[in-house]
C-alpha cells in the first residue's frame, strides 16, 4: 500500500473509532504518546483516552476534508495532517478542526500514534 493510501486508511480508522467506540482509541496510543488538545498537554495512552472519553459530548461525527502525509525521516514513520469538520449531536453548526498525527510502525505491521495535536479552526 502506498504511503498516501496508508495515511488515509489510518485516519479513517482513527475517526471511526473515535465516533463509534471512543474507549478503543487506547489501542492506537502507547506510554510515550503525547496529545496536545486545544493547548492542553497530555501524555500516555491511559491519560489520553481518559481525556478523549471525558470530552463534554456523547456523540460526534468527524468528516475529513483533506489528508496530507510525508515520511518523518526514520523507518516507515509518517506525519499526517488532517483538516475536517466535527459535528456534535444537537449542535446546529459543525466545528472545523485541524489535526496532526505522527505515526510510528508497530512490530505487528500496524501504526501507533506517537504525537497528536488537535486544534479547532474558529471562524
Amino acid at each position, binding site marked *: 500500500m502506498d504511503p498516501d493510501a496508508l495515511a488515509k486508511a489510518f485516519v479513517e480508522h482513527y475517526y471511526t473509532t473515535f465516533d463509534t467506540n471512543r474507549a478503543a482509541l487506547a489501542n492506537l496510543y502507547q506510554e*510515550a504518546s503525547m496529545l496536545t488538545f486545544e493547548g492542553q498537554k497530555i501524555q500516555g495512552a491511559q491519560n489520553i483516552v481518559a481525556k478523549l472519553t471525558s470530552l463534554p459530548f456523547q456523540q460526534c461525527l468527524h468528516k475529513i476534508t483533506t489528508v496530507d502525509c*510525508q515520511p518523518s*525521516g*526514520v523507518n516507515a514513520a509518517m506525519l499526517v495532517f488532517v483538516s475536517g469538520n466535527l459535528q456534535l449531536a444537537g449542535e446546529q453548526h459543525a466545528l472545523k478542526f485541524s489535526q496532526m498525527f505522527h505515526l510510528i510502525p508497530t512490530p505487528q505491521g500496524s501504526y501507533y500514534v506517537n504525537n497528536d*495535536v488537535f486544534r479547532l479552526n474558529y471562524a
Partner: protein
Amino acid sequence: MDADSVAKAFVEHYYSTFDNNRHALFSLYQDNSMLTFEGDKIQGAQAITTKLTSLPFQHCHHAISTVDSQPSGVNSGMLVFVSGTLQLAGEQNALKFSQMFHLIPTQQGSYYVLNDIFRLNYA
C-alpha cells in the same frame, strides 16, 4: 531555552523571513526537505524556495494565533503546529491557515525544516 520557546522563536523567524525576504527561506530547508503546499508535493530546498517565491502575491503578512510543539521522537526533532492568518496586500479579508513543521537540529545549534505541510482553512 525550553522547547516551547524554541518552537515559538523558530516560527516567528520563519514567518518574518517569509514576509520580508522570501528568498532567504532557502537557508531553512535542506536537500531532503519536503513541502506539501495545498496538496502540491515539493522536495528539496531549491524547489521549495522556487515554489514559495513564485506564489501569486508580492507582499503578505502572517499573524500567528496558536503554536503547539512536541518532541517528535525521531532524530531529536520537534513537531510544531501553527494556526494563523495570512493577509495579502490588496485583499480585504485575511486567509486562515494551519501549518505543520518537523524541525531537525543542525550542527550549528539551529534547526532546519525537514517536513512542512501548509493548508488554508476555508470558511
